């Protein structure tokens, strides 16, 4: 699942454009983003709004965080192969 501050209709454009099969969830108030400690204050400089910094978490079947990655640079994200191999290690 993906989480962003974008409203649902903005996310719908992304889902349609890339034929995404996973949901994009809208956290317009950034409450969940804050709960995970991944808020980027005023990260949207145009509107002066708090957004999410890029972050990836892998949860096991009981909802425990077993892996996470927070890049230092927003252009650099984990590769799909990396996530798949981490997922394969979870029973």
């Amino acid at each position, binding site marked *: 699942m993906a989480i962003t501050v*974008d409203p649902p209709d903005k996310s719908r454009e992304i889902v349609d454009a890339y034929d995404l099969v996973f949901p994009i969830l809208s956290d317009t108030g950034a409450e969940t983003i804050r709960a*995970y*400690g991944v808020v980027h204050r005023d990260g949207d400089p145009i509107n002066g709004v708090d957004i999410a910094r890029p972050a990836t978490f892998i949860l096991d079947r009981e909802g*425990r965080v077993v892996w996470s990655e*927070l890049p230092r640079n927003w252009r650099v994200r984990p590769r799909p192969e990396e996530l798949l191999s981490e997922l394969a290690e979870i029973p």
Partner: protein
Amino acid sequence: MTAERPPRNHALWLGPLVAFGGMVSYFQFFVRFPTLRDFPWVNLPLVLIGIALSLGGFWGAYVRGSRWPVKLAASLGLALSLLFGGFLIAYVFGISNSLPSTTLITRSLEQAPDFALEDSAGRVHRLSDYRGSKVVLVFYRGHW
């Protein structure tokens, strides 16, 4: 009986063109390739070539003592190349690095906090509904 014309100074216009292409194609095209996005292996050389061409054009215009319109064009071209190339370099190595550092909240997360959020079709997803499944949660900046 034509007067001998000085060689054309193509670097004048090629420089800013290459620098502009090098900058724009990073965002429009090369970001789709992870290796070329993480480090601009194509775009950094392109903008540097553009700047070098403009420097050559500038040098040519002033050393050969071209007429003032040529000197003006060479100066403008160099300024544009530096602007385009400088923006790419600033974005890649500076601006996109300006993320907050990781927080204590994130580092001490054990049980993932539950949430109930709406997806793009208006359906509400609760994290607790996914008990029994492995979950990948991707937070991203969004498109605002």
